């Protein structure tokens, strides 16, 4: 196949194209960042379910604040951590629309923990996309609630010390103690298989919302090479070898019941 040819020939088979829900523009994310992949997966799911025109997203304060640059749907910013409260207000006023919040670990598990737990506990019929990259990306790699024990960050320069800084908070397990959530799942962007699983999890969550099933949260273990202080390739290895042991993958809650 000639590389200079731009038009596909009749006999070519298109195996991948940019989802319509994704805007065609260069990314501002750092090389190897997981946010771009997570955005693309959401866009694919909106396309698959044909819900782009009825979807309203809520962007966090964090590296993904400019989600509206990339996702071709209505989007509101929210104050740091208040993302699920804003999503709640939207969904209660427009119950027939699809509403999702997109949040980092600082936004969701630190400053916004109260909003996170209570939106889940009310069983809001929304989808929460939780990007856990083990650090605060936007502000320069500070310690997050999900930073691993011993992990060095800007605010744990000698490594996270569990005796004074606590240990990584496992959000899926925490929310699974509640009665109301419908679907809770943890996936990892640790390679093609993981990415496919992540897409499937998001599909389940958005589809459930369309059917009025209730609250879903998909936690995505995601690379932040810059602040993990690793190359993109090693960041993926860090997810496999460091994060997954601390944050086990899997479906924690299915059809409103804990998975045992």
């Amino acid at each position: 196949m000639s590389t200079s040819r731009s038009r596909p020939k009749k006999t070519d088979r298109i195996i991948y194209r940019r989802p319509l829900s994704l805007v065609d523009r260069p990314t501002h994310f750092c090389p190897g960042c997981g946010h771009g992949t997570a955005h693309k997966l959401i866009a694919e799911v909106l396309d698959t379910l044909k819900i782009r025109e009825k979807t309203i997203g809520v962007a966090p304060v964090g590296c993904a604040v400019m989600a509206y640059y990339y996702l071709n749907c209505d989007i509101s910013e929210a104050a740091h951590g208040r993302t699920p409260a804003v999503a709640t207000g939207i969904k209660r006023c427009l119950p027939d629309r699809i509403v999702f919040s997109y949040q980092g670990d600082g936004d969701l598990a630190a400053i916004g923990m109260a909003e996170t737990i209570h939106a889940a506990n009310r069983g809001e019929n929304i989808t929460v996309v939780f990007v856990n990259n083990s650090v605060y990306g936007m502000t320069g790699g500070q310690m997050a609630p999900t930073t691993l024990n011993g992990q060095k960050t800007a605010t744990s320069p000698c490594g996270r010390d569990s005796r004074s800084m606590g240990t990584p908070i496992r959000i899926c397990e925490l929310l699974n103690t509640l009665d109301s959530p419908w679907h809770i799942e943890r996936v990892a962007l640790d390679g093609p298989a993981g990415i496919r699983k992540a897409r499937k999890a998001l599909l389940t969550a958005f589809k459930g919302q369309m059917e009025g099933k209730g609250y879903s949260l998909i936690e995505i273990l995601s690379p932040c090479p810059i602040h993990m202080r690793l190359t993109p390739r090693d960041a993926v290895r860090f997810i496999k070898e460091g994060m997954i042991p601390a944050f086990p993958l899997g479906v924690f809650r299915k059809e409103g019941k804990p998975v045992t």
Partner: protein
Amino acid sequence: MHNRVLMNGNDAIGEGAIRAGCHAYFGYPITPQNELTSYMAKHMPEHGRVFIQAESEVAAINMVFGAVVTGKRAMTSSSSPGISLKQEGLSYLAAAELPAVVVNVQRGGPGLGNIAPSQADYFQATKGGGHGDYHLIVLAPNSVQEMHDFTIDAFALADRYRNPVMILTDGRLGQMMEPLVLYKGAPPKSPPKPWSLTGARNRKPNHIRSLLLEVDALEERNLILQAKYKTILAELVGFDEYLTQDAQVLAIAYGSSARIAKGAVDQARAKGIKAGLLRPITLWPFPRARIRQLAAKVKGILVVEMSAGQMLEDVQLAVGERSPIAFEGRMGGAVPEESDVLTALQHLNKPTRKGARS
């Protein structure tokens, strides 16, 4: 419901909101505004509207944010400590030019303070409160009837100017019962809201944002806000005057304090003192021009507040050197006595009064 009813001020606000077409209410318990949250819990669902008892005032104001980005009318209410928690949300609402109604049934502060009525949140309400250059429109009712009527106005103004509106009242007005004529009209007309988030069907996606990383863009945004505030200053100033025509001493007070000041003005008149009352109805925009006019005619001005003297500073700015200004105020939930206000008016009326606070 009969058209003329006996209600407390908190309920009167709730019923006003419902009649104004408020689609969603989000609240968190705090005295002395609890009647309002309970009223909404009972009556919003009856009208097919949204009620949520939020996990905090922070969550409540952000639920309001979410509700109003859809173009629906929404409200939250609280009292002083809870209103402090809402300041971040108010800044975001103002920044994104979103119409919302927020009620502050003030209580004694600072800190946890007490649950007695107060007017010590004036600075917070009228000067911004949260971060950044912004203003709320602030309405100050002084009767149960006005609690009701101003709530309807608040929704109309919020929509007209795409700006958060605060009803600044206090525990006394919130909990007192008075006869009230309920609003019978249709909800104020809602302007088209092409900016709202409803799903990008047959149009480009809409975005609600306040992040503008480029300095030029953010300054431009600020200039737009300031131009709007200028329009509001020109169009919206509201006040009420009582016996000011020939007044030689002028009381200035709002809300509960204005009721007390009015009683003192009546007593002063009975003693032959030409006293009058100016009652600001909009605290922002503040009736500065009218106060300046009156200041040129009177011997002295008395500001009455349930605070250490907050509106006093706006009066001082308006009056300058045109008239001496005295202050009568109580703090910590205490209410000025009518007799003390009368004495202060009598003092101001003395021809050679010196040492007035100006």
